[in-house]
């Protein structure tokens, strides 16, 4: 196991390098002069081309692409992630502050979708063809079809504006004293994020459960005379869970990107909103590092997923 994890970590290095190159190269292709975002237009208009070149040279922008890329890469590995061009705050500090906020939302959403999705999926599978199954299937299809931002806005409209149960958006207020007050802010975005993911988990859990309940070992389990709930939950569910957990784990990296939409709808101050702001403001150091962090996170999540599959499925454990 330890050897396997180490091997996976080693493959991270070339993958991270490749992705960093793609990110840097991609931003190089973005049109527009970076100086336009650094100075107001009227100041820029007063400067002569020679002056502009001096400024460019001071940032190292006169160097060829490859040189700039490696210079940047070297600095990143040294821990110098640059400063935000908008506020001058080190990018590292911004990410350190914002990433946990996104994880808080994404993980809550994940837990909601995992629990709700598997419970409802199994319920539908055990009542296949009955009314409850048909209702859940219908909800699942509708759930998958509704865009998240729309769902989020409807939720704000109902629960925040009409019923006034929960705040419209944001994460904290300065006067907040108790942790459960913070929970009020989390509920709505986490529910929206979780529920939009639930339908696919539910559909998957349903088909996986149906498949495993048709397998022979379920009949063997019944032939032992153990109660039906035990047949369903111990034997059927345990086998069903393997692919469902893999699906959920696959969602983890995607959740970070989907939460961007939710973050913007609910003004949740996470990395997603920061990323969006950075892109619109052409805040390159910020954009590059957030993109790179997301790449690393996706790889870490996939490693986590592999380790987890090994733990729950003995057939994978051996190899």
């Amino acid at each position, binding site marked *: 196991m330890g050897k396997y994890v180490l091997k996976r970590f080693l493959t991270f290095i070339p993958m991270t390098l490749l992705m960093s190159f793609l990110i840097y190269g991609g931003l190089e292709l973005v049109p527009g002069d970076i100086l336009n975002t650094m100075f107001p237009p009227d100041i820029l208009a007063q400067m002569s081309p020679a002056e502009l070149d001096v400024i460019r040279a001071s940032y190292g922008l006169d160097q060829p692409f490859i040189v700039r890329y490696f210079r940047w890469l070297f600095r990143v590995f040294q821990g110098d992630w640059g400063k935000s061009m908008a506020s001058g705050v080190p990018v590292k500090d911004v990410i350190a502050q914002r990433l946990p906020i996104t994880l808080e939302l994404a993980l809550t959403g994940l837990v909601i979708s995992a629990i709700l999705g598997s419970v409802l999926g199994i319920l539908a599978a055990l009542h296949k063809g009955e009314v409850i199954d048909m209702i859940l299937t219908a909800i699942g299809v509708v759930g998958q079809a509704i865009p998240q931002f729309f769902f989020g806005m409807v939720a704000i409209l109902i629960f925040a504006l009409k019923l006034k149960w929960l705040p419209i958006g944001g994460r904290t207020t300065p006067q907040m004293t108790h942790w459960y007050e913070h929970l009020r802010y989390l509920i709505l975005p986490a529910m929206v994020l979780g529920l939009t993911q639930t339908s696919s988990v539910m559909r998957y859990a349903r088909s996986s459960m149906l498949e495993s309940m048709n397998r022979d*070992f379920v009949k063997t389990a019944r032939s032992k005379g153990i109660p039906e709930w035990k047949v369903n939950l111990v034997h059927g569910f345990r086998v069903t869970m393997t692919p469902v957990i893999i699906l959920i784990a696959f969602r983890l990296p995607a959740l970070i990107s989907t939460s961007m939409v939710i973050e913007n709808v609910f003004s949740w101050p996470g990395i997603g909103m920061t990323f969006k702001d950075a892109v619109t403001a052409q805040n390159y150091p910020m954009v590059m590092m957030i993109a790179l962090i997301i790449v690393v996170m996706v790889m870490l999540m996939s490693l986590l997923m592999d380790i987890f599959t090994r733990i729950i499925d003995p057939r994978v454990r051996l190899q």
Partner: protein
Amino acid sequence: MAGESVISVRHLKTYFYTEKRCNKAVNDVSFEIRKGKCLCVVGESGCGKSVTASSIMQLLPRLSRIEEGEIIYHTHDKGDVVLSDLGKNSKEMRAYRGKNIAMIFQDPMTALNPVFKVGNQIAENIRQHDKCSKAEARKRTLELLKQMGIPEPERRIDQYPHEYSGGMRQRAMIALAMSCSPDVLLADEPTTALDVTIQAQIFELMTKLKEENDTAILLITHDMGVVCEMADDVLVMYMGNVVESGTAREVLKNPKHPYTRALLASILVLGKGKDQNIQPIRGMTPNPYNRPPGCQFEPRCDFACEACRERMPDEEVIEGTTHMIRCCNWREACKNDGE
């Protein structure tokens, strides 16, 4: 029929329902499973062999049910119990299932749960029926694996099914089935998925268990060689009916029903050389949703007459024997036998 019977099946009818159509998978089947004897059920695919066994265990799939008839279990202590009257998953039915009546299945590759250790799957059955400690159940499991001839049981008990070979898995399945010393073992084509040498070992094991524990065995197969080897009693089924039954000697030595005779004529005999005259049965089994009105074998039978076409012949027992034939023309079919 000598020997007391453990399970009596009387006029069992099990039907399957699919979208307003009804498949009479088992239609009026009666037989006895005798203590310490092996009853072989023979017949081609889809004739209702497995459904009969599943009916006894009440392990029928959804959309199927026992329509009529009785399945009686003759217990030692509580007299006769009508299993077919118990609820599918009632506490009482479950108490018999796995303890008094156990079942092994066709494909040992899929019959064991892939994510649990083999030992725990066996111990689960022991702990379900005999309330005992985990350590006690483990000790008994170890003993069972040893009895079933699994090498290195101490190591094997903590392994997963995928670490076992096919034959070993079937041994583990038999260990599971025998773990509570059942009165009846239902074996649904236990060796179809295994190769011939392993098949012989499994049957040897089953014969040993039959003789040592006086277990009654219901063995489902479509291999006539296995029947000759194992059977004390034989039951020949065709399209949901028993067409012929009796002791192995009666049925195999003096087959009377045209179907049994055709079945026996259609198999190769090892050692007779390559120029054997095999006579396949002409035609195909009828569509179960569109059955012939009378005898099910009538469209393929050489001795069919008007009477067979109109109604199902009754079961007829030859006087002074246990040999039953369901055919109105069996005497004509056998007239050249020179008896």
